[in-house]
């Protein structure tokens, strides 16, 4: 999947299997990614588990779990709020589009999470105060080794060249490592045209869209990139940083240090 970290770094990663997206004193988010095509390095998110940890006086521990073709509008215990404590409604799930789009407001930690199913796969977006992001560091316990903070490990990053033109053209090249296994993908020009319809700005979301179409031939990924950008527009606090143009590939650790 494509990852935009808390420090606005943008990477395309393999991260097959279960990985932590967020892990701090208040919240644990884990994703499971599966190959989109047999033998492909490219994976997409097929399962998402969010644990809101117990917060005294406000919410009980709550678990939210979504899988392919099952995007519930409730926590695992069937409730839609934070339980029985006095501030239970500071945690709430809202269904925006049945089975397709839910929003979780965790007001007690100033956090908003958006989960969507687009096509077969899931997308995730979060808005969180820096203080909450750093909560693990303050407690001095964890290592902060999670994707939203540190990005993907170098070994898990897919080297996507700038997609400035068709495969083999001087301006860019196809995402060779992942595209090799795709049997029925679009020609570059068709993929670019489809992405341009939804994503007129040729930023990294547009490039991610082209990459996904070239890799899988699944047009639903156009919508995944489009909604990911829509979520950024809703959740990002700096409106000047909505569009990103430079991909990040660097050793893990620098991203967190930059914060």
């Amino acid at each position, binding site marked *: *999947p*494509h*990852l*935009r970290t*808390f*420090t606005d770094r943008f990477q*395309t990663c393999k991260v097959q299997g279960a990985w932590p*997206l*967020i892990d701090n004193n208040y919240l644990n988010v884990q994703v499971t990614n599966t190959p*989109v095509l047999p033998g492909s390095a*490219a994976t*997409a998110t097929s399962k998402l588990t969010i644990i809101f940890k*117990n917060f*005294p*006086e*406000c*919410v009980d521990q709550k678990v939210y779990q979504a899988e392919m073709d099952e995007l519930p509008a409730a*926590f695992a215990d*069937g*409730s*839609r*709020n*934070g*339980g*029985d*404590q*006095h*501030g*239970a*409604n*500071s945690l709430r799930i809202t269904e925006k589009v049945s089975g397709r789009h839910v929003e979780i407001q965790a007001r*007690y*930690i*100033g*956090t908003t999470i958006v989960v969507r199913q687009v096509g077969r*796969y899931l*997308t*995730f*977006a*979060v*808005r*969180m*105060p*820096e*203080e909450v*992001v750093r909560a693990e560091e*303050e407690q001095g316990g964890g290592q902060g080794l999670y994707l*939203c903070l540190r990005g993907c490990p170098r070994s898990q990053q897919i080297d996507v060249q700038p997609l400035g033109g068709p495969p083999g053209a001087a301006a860019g090249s196809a995402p060779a490592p*992942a595209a090799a296994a795709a049997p029925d993908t679009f020609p570059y020009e068709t993929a670019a045209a489809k992405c341009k319809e939804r994503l007129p700005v040729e930023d990294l979301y547009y490039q*991610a*869209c082209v*990459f*996904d179409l070239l*890799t899988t031939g699944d047009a639903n990924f156009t919508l*995944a*990139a489009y909604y*990911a950008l829509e979520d*950024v527009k809703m*959740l990002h*606090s700096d409106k000047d940083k909505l569009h990103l143009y430079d991909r990040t590939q660097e050793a893990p650790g620098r991203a967190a240090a930059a914060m």
Partner: protein
Amino acid sequence: CKILKCNSDFWSATAGGPSPASSDDPAPEFCAALRTYALCTRRTARTCRGDLAYHSAVHGIEDLMGQHNCSREGPTAPPRPRTPPAPPPAAPAGPGDSQERADSPEVCHYEQRSGPRRANYTHCGLFGD
């Protein structure tokens, strides 16, 4: 700054029994609660710098430890028991839901709790293949 949470945890931990009357006979449970309170304040030290409630708590802990002859080293209090579930509401909004509560405590509103300084928000997203 989460000093109010430290305060409320301490008061919850010590409300069930009287504090020791004399410094000659320190109550182990009270001292353990104090050590937990001190640990909690140390964890919030960075974000609470300059906060009056925080500095009051730090001084208060020092005083109480001295008054009750508590050692700084030793066991801390066990985790606070969870709030027992309330009786089910008459007309729940959904399965397992609680009734609407318009008067959530301030501690459950991050922006109110963080006070006048404006929080900086960050974003993370994952999508596509």
